[in-house]
């Protein structure tokens, strides 16, 4: 069992003779692990109310920093070959598999599920990541094509990534902590977009650990940025941010009030692509709607002639 797992609140020495080294859960922005610039943190608890960890409570400034980092990473990530993106993402799955026990423990602690179920969720999450990794160099063929225009042009349409996308990870529910997170993050980045993820407020630990996996993978810094904190506080800044191109409202669906509506209205200011898919059974076949939702279609008229 990795030392990264959260500790009980008692803080008693873990074992007979040594004091455990506890993990500090931080944000992941631009490939680095800063604390919130606000200096704030919040207590993450298990379902029984026991202390699990302190997590960073991200602020508006953190969200903006994350968008800047994601924009900076966009040219490189979207410009990489599809084959390369596929390789890089598959490598992430390899690393996830290597941390299977750590993820399972975090899922178990945060969701209260038995270890066997937690392991199943981790396995499904790894498999899901592999599934998306394999999509990287298929998207253009499935989504693009030649158009038989009446004229001397080679006309073709290709999918292109939307740009910087804000992903509100699912907040709660079976399988949401890791499988749900992977199911909303992977489709955002596989096509070449870069992401700012707002992790589940109550279950952020697998998200932070995932960001550690990403940091040690070949995914360039800034391609994925992970914020922990209150979705109701951070999401409005992302929804109204003029340099964000798309937003997935998964994590706002069950929120009190009309948060999802408010975010969708704010998103209209720069006509973000808004993904508002019905609440998902994360274990089910994910389909392609989420992945395709982050794609633009570019049509090029190329001249033909001698």
């Amino acid at each position: 069992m990795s030392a990264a797992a959260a500790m009980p609140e008692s803080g008693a020495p873990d074992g007979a003779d040594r004091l455990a080294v506890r993990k500090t859960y931080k944000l992941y922005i631009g490939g680095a692990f800063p604390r919130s610039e606000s200096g704030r943190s919040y207590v993450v608890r298990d379902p029984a109310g026991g202390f699990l960890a302190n997590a960073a409570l991200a602020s508006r400034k953190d969200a903006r920093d994350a968008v800047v980092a994601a924009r900076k990473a966009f040219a490189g990530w979207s410009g990489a070959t599809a084959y390369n993106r596929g390789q890089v993402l598959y490598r992430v799955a390899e690393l996830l598999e290597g941390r299977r026990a750590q993820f399972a423990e975090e899922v178990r602690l945060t969701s209260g599920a038995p270890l066997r179920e937690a392991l199943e969720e981790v396995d499904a999450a790894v498999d899901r990541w592999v599934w998306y990794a394999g999509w990287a160099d298929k998207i253009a063929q499935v989504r693009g094509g030649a158009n038989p225009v009446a004229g001397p042009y080679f006309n073709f349409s290709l999918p292109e990534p939307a740009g910087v996308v804000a992903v509100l990870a699912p907040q709660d529910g079976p399988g949401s902590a890791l499988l749900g997170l992977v199911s909303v993050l992977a489709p955002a980045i596989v096509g070449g977009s870069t992401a700012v993820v707002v992790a589940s407020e109550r279950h952020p630990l697998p998200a932070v650990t995932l960001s550690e996996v990403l940091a040690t993978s070949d995914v360039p810094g800034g391609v994925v940025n992970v914020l922990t904190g209150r979705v109701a506080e951070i999401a409005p800044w992302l929804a109204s941010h003029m340099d964000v191109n798309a937003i997935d409202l998964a994590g706002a669906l069950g929120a009190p009030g009309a948060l999802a509506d408010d975010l969708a209205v704010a998103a209209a200011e720069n006509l973000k692509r808004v993904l508002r898919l019905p609440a998902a059974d994360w274990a089910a076949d994910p389909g392609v709607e989420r992945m395709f939702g982050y794609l633009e279609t570019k049509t090029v008229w190329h001249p033909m002639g001698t």
Partner: protein
Amino acid sequence: MRFEYAPAPESRSVVSLRDCYGLFINGEFVDGNSAFKTISPATEEVLAEVAHAGPEDVDRAVAAARRAYERVWSALPGRERGKYLFRIARIIQERARELAVLETLDNGKPIRESRDVDVPLAAAHFFYHAGWADKLGYAGFGPSPRPLGVAGQVIPWNFPLLMLAWKIAPALACGNTVVLKPAETTPLTALLFAEICQQAGLPPGVVNIVTGDGSTGQALVAHPGIDKVAFTGSTEVGKEIARVCAVSGKRLTLELGGKAANVVFDDAPVDQAVEGIVNGIFFNQGHVCCAGSRLLVQESVAGEVLDALKRRMATLRLGDPLDKNTDVGAINSRAQLDKITELASSGDAEGAQRWSAPCPLPDRGFWFPPTVFTGVSQAHRIAREEIFGPVLSVLTFRTPAEAVEKANNTPYGLSAGVWTEKGSLILWLASRLRAGVVWANTFNRFDPSSPFGGYKESGFGREGGRHGLEAYLDVGGGGDA
């Protein structure tokens, strides 16, 4: 040397205008409670009175569309729907001359364009989509994609019949019924299209046309009885509609404004590029969302290109839109002319240099001469805002990377052009431009099989091609993709 042209007016006699037109609801023309006049922008003569649809009329139209959807259209096999669309396409071709003259009268665009572009493309759109109606299961959206229901469609005044075709053809092919609102200043070809629907024997209620102003459009877009909104028009109104649909959860596609860069490299054939620049910005008086309104020309050839451009602009013939030799017609409305005039003045005030083609403007009607601004900086309003008129802003660049930077420096992302002899440079630039349509060594080409639509604030969704079908199909979720 200057060529003299004898007048060559297209005859108006092919069009029989009525004094007043009703709303087209449930297969019949019905009276509205009030009416407004539509004029010819070239002469300011009143062409006809047209009914103004209020909320209760929109209600009736939506109810008719819903009935037709549930009782007839959604139950009809695809091949039968397709045959109706083929019929409509044929009738558009048969009545092409009439449609072209009417379009030119009501819109002010040159007959050469309505005859050679608008009407043939409208027919082509119906032909193309007719064939899809019984093949939707092969379109890549699952084995049996379902229609959405009733579509509310709001279209602009720049290509009245063509935009109608872009909206109605895919909607009907996919099994939806429609309520369409044409633009306030250009309702007549839509009403003639309503006659064509009658002539084709289209079941009542499948197509409904409600004329009116912005309030009619608002009532339609917000109507709880429609499942899908499709809008082409300004980005400002598009954002408002996006807010409305954000709450109602209706499916939405938006095709909005643009500020396209037309990038000319130093190896481009100058004469060909100049034709493309002229076509890019003066086609349809620049009333084109994808108009090439920002010319980015490589510094080393800027002088040569601009000289050739001005020479060419001086030969453009502005005047009677019905004259077959006319290149540049009338501005569509007084309001649009005021907007163009105001933005052009801002160009003067901000320090750009204006040059207009030396063409006399008619005394009556709304006119603006083909105009080019040089010395434009990226901060100028005429480089940032959509003018939607015959006004070109010229900027220069030195390296391809600088061209990319400047071309993408806009909240819009609808279209772009590139002029070079080098195929690899075309594809290099095309892959870096954040725009939905990229024309290489051409501009303002359209085809029903070619998806059209924008990135960023130019809207979302595509119209035309296989991709455009998705906007009118339930592909298994509630996404806006």
